[in-house]
């Protein structure tokens, strides 16, 4: 399915891109993260397990097991620091 992935802050900076559309067979946000990490390089560096990476699905904070659907929006970002 096609998904729209967004990156923010230091993750966006390291990857050098803020968003990308991609085709995936991943069923969950966590599986998509694994798929992106498998690209190696900076993807593995910024999205690696054990790193503090937060996720959102359709603009709502989500956990690893959140289910993807066609044309959904997923975001990966560092711990937030607003306020």
């Amino acid at each position, binding site marked *: 399915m096609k998904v729209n992935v967004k990156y923010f*802050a230091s993750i966006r900076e390291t990857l050098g891109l803020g968003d990308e559309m991609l085709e995936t067979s991943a069923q969950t946000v966590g599986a998509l993260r694994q798929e992106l990490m498998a690209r190696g390089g900076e993807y593995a560096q910024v999205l690696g397990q054990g790193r*503090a990476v937060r996720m959102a699905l359709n603009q*709502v904070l989500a956990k690893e097991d959140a289910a993807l659907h066609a044309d959904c929006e997923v975001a990966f*970002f560092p711990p*937030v*620091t607003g*306020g």
Partner: protein
Amino acid sequence: MTLSVTIQTQDFDVAHELAQLRQGQAGVGAVCCFVGTVREHSEGAAVSSMELEHYPGMTEKSIQAMMQEAAQRFDILGARVIHRVGLLQPQEQIVLVAVTSAHRGVSFQACEFLMDYLKTQAPFWKKEMTPTGAQWVDARVSDDQALARWGLDMPNA
């Protein structure tokens, strides 16, 4: 009940916002307001400016949901949140959280609840410009602990 949030680059006028919030609300006896500003020093280093990034769409949605939750927990009459984004200088205003209610207790509580909530759950990221270069601000465990006091276990840092 008015619950409104605005994300904007421009500065806000606290007096104007409080007047707007109170307008037409006959039952209001208490108005509580918090303003967050850019500190000149952070972790011992001088901060020359700060850049605030956010997730357009999600920022407004998430804060709106937090305000709905505040209205469910506390008997408030209205709430207003303004959060700036973009490039800010030391001493500039960053965030406003204002709450109205009949009596002061719930205003104080709801105001603190909203600040604790948005500190660790609203998608903003701060980058500080210091003499040694630009660095992203680290999230704090103490902020997670502040939110936990309200019974919300949603670790960020």
